[in-house]
């Protein structure tokens, strides 16, 4: 994995740890080396902000029904475009892999999912997905190895998977996922864990994992796998543990070891880390911390190197966690608004 941050590369143990895959050494405190704020000019609450694949663009979406695209250059942001069209708050956006072009998907309370593309500096809507009958709460592009595919989670209890085919048409599969609503979906990494270190006669051809997880209002996390023989997605696992709505679910990027990590966060103010030692082992759960968080936990996000988890909590705090050698999770950084203002710039 490419060392993506100059600050990490500066630390002594980073290059070593990246070759091994997972940082199990004593945690290097993930201190912010530079931080800056951005005034988006949205007129209402913001519900998502996502960098594109290269970190050159930032998309934000809001209750004001718009999506704003910013060009990012170091600390400078310039508003490039405001996308309009949704008839309700826009809950989430997701950038596609650049090999498909400059493409963004958005989902909204109006029950629709839009796919937008920029060509020659112009943004246009290339697809409208209106199959859901209630708010679509989450949308996510699949790993690029699976082709141009998005999964959407809706309050109507269903999950839909859309695939763009070579002939220019879209395939849609609707799945009944969670009885009273689905809040989030997250894709599994495309490469089967452990496959990178199993060099054998078939090396060069890695098995592809086609899985995603869904977070439901029935307090469950479900894992779905694509069944080639049935041409559709089936529930592979149901993970019970939360006592209230599961708000978000995120699968850690695969870094080469056979173990899989899945994080889920909930209205019940907890974050659970689910691990699977090998792709055929059962999933085991572990709370991120022993006490509950101060408020609802809204989002979990893994770093691209797969070893840091960012947890966003309703008490307005974002905290970063890392797994220690003992197997317990430790908070390595807490980003409060005040603290961020004080952190300063280097």
């Amino acid at each position, binding site marked *: 994995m490419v060392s993506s941050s100059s600050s990490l590369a500066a630390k002594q143990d980073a290059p070593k740890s990246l070759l091994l895959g997972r940082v199990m050494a004593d945690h290097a405190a993930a201190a912010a080396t530079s931080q800056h704020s951005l005034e988006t000019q949205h007129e*209402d609450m913001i519900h998502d902000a996502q960098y594109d694949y290269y970190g050159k663009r930032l998309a934000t979406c809001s209750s004001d029904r718009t999506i704003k695209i910013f060009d990012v250059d170091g600390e400078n942001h310039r508003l490039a475009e405001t996308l309009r069209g949704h008839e*309700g708050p826009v809950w989430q956006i997701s950038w596609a892999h650049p090999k498909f072009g400059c493409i963004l998907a958005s989902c909204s309370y109006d029950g629709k999912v839009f796919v937008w593309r920029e060509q020659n500096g112009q943004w246009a809507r290339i697809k409208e997905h209106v199959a859901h009958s209630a708010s679509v709460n989450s949308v996510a592009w699949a790993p690029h190895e699976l082709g141009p595919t998005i999964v959407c989670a809706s309050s109507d*209890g269903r999950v839909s998977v859309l695939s763009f085919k070579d002939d220019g048409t879209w395939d849609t599969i609707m799945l009944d996922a969670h009885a009273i609503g689905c809040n989030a979906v997250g894709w599994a990494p495309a490469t089967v864990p452990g496959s990178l270190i199993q060099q054998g006669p078939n090396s060069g051809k890695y098995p592809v994992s086609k899985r995603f997880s869904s977070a439901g209002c029935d307090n469950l996390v479900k894992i779905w796998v694509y069944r080639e023989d049935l041409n559709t997605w089936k529930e592979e696992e149901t993970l019970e543990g939360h006592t209230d709505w599961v708000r978000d679910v995120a699968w850690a990027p695969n870094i080469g070891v056979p173990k899989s990590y899945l994080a889920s966060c909930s209205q019940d103010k907890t974050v659970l880390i689910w691990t699977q030692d090998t792709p055929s082992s059962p999933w085991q759960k572990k709370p991120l911390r022993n006490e509950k968080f101060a408020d609802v936990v809204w989002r979990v996000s893994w770093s691209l190197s797969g070893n840091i988890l960012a947890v*966003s909590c309703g008490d307005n705090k974002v905290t970063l966690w890392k797994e220690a050698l003992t197997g317990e999770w430790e908070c390595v950084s807490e980003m409060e608004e005040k603290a961020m203002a004080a952190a300063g710039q280097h």
Partner: protein
Amino acid sequence: MRQKTISRTSTFAWSPGQHVPLLATGTVAGAFDANFSNTSQLEIFDLNLADKSPEAIELSQPSGYVSSNARFNRLAWASPTVDRPYGMIAGGMENGELNLWDANAILSGSDDVLFSKQTNHSGPVRGLHFNPFQQNLLSSASSNGEIFIWDLGNLTKPYTPGSRSAKLEDITCVSWNNHVQHILATSSTTGYTVVWDLKSKREVLTLSYPGAGVGGMGSMGNLGQMSASRRGITAIAWNPDVATQIITATEDDNNPVILVWDLRYAHAPEKLPPSSSWTFDIAWCPRNPDLLASASFDGKINVDSIQSTHDSESATASHAVQESHDPFAPQQYQSQGATATISLKQPPKWLRRPIGATFGFGGKLVSFRNRPAPPSSLPLGAVTPIGVPTNISSVTL
């Protein structure tokens, strides 16, 4: 979007626990079914929401039931406690009894279901509500302005919220405030709604519903000038978000309007657009705020999801569906089609993600926060404030 239908002429209550929602129904007093039977049952239904097939819309079999000697005016369901994993169901009966059942006992089919029977009221018990902060406190109300507050831990000595109010006769509804635990509202067939403060043990405010044709007049005083055709209040509901807002509905078929009052301003109350006729009971599912149940006199209890954005094809359009209003949205619209649905223009608060942080390429973490909006000091009907302060920051680790 219609999720389920139960064919009972009953009043009902949602289960407050954290399990998948259940619905309790009690044969309602004052109405007869097609067989003119006079049996009365308390039933608990599992909604089976995972099954979305059209055949599964009609729920016919309860998960548990118990027979009762009298019919129900009102049901209320208290949260589970250590001893009672499914909570306690209270029934306000037409014969003046107040009965308490253990919900778990009903579901498990055991014989020992009736927890208590109280006969303090002199007339049919129409008002019944558990205090949202202290679920062991139950308020019940009946004719002659009788209001009792019960402590489930000691049912022998109920107390009253103050001396009897002259403006209340037969009380139709009681409702505890969702924010201030000692505030109680009671509504009556006289057309008045009286708000009580239990700490000072007295009534603090009166809302009077003007008769048809009279413009909305606010709270205190104007008794003599009201037209004589004041109709009774059938339902009241406090706004779960705004402590000073309460909705009242009346039984006036000519003017089935629902009024939205803000107690701070003593303005003319805001009116919600009238429906074709009136429902006699509506309730939010407390655990899953997306679901709304409504009962009406066409013999149906309907469970609706407030989140539908458009109608699915409705084959069951033959009967006129009684519409129930969402009392908490000042604006609403009805979608086309015989099966009208409820949709909120403003999404509910529980959908709005206020904070998030996502990693990106280059060790960047972008996070956003929405600072809490200033307390609502705007008059009713004002547009959502624009320029809500937000904060997006990007950190490189």
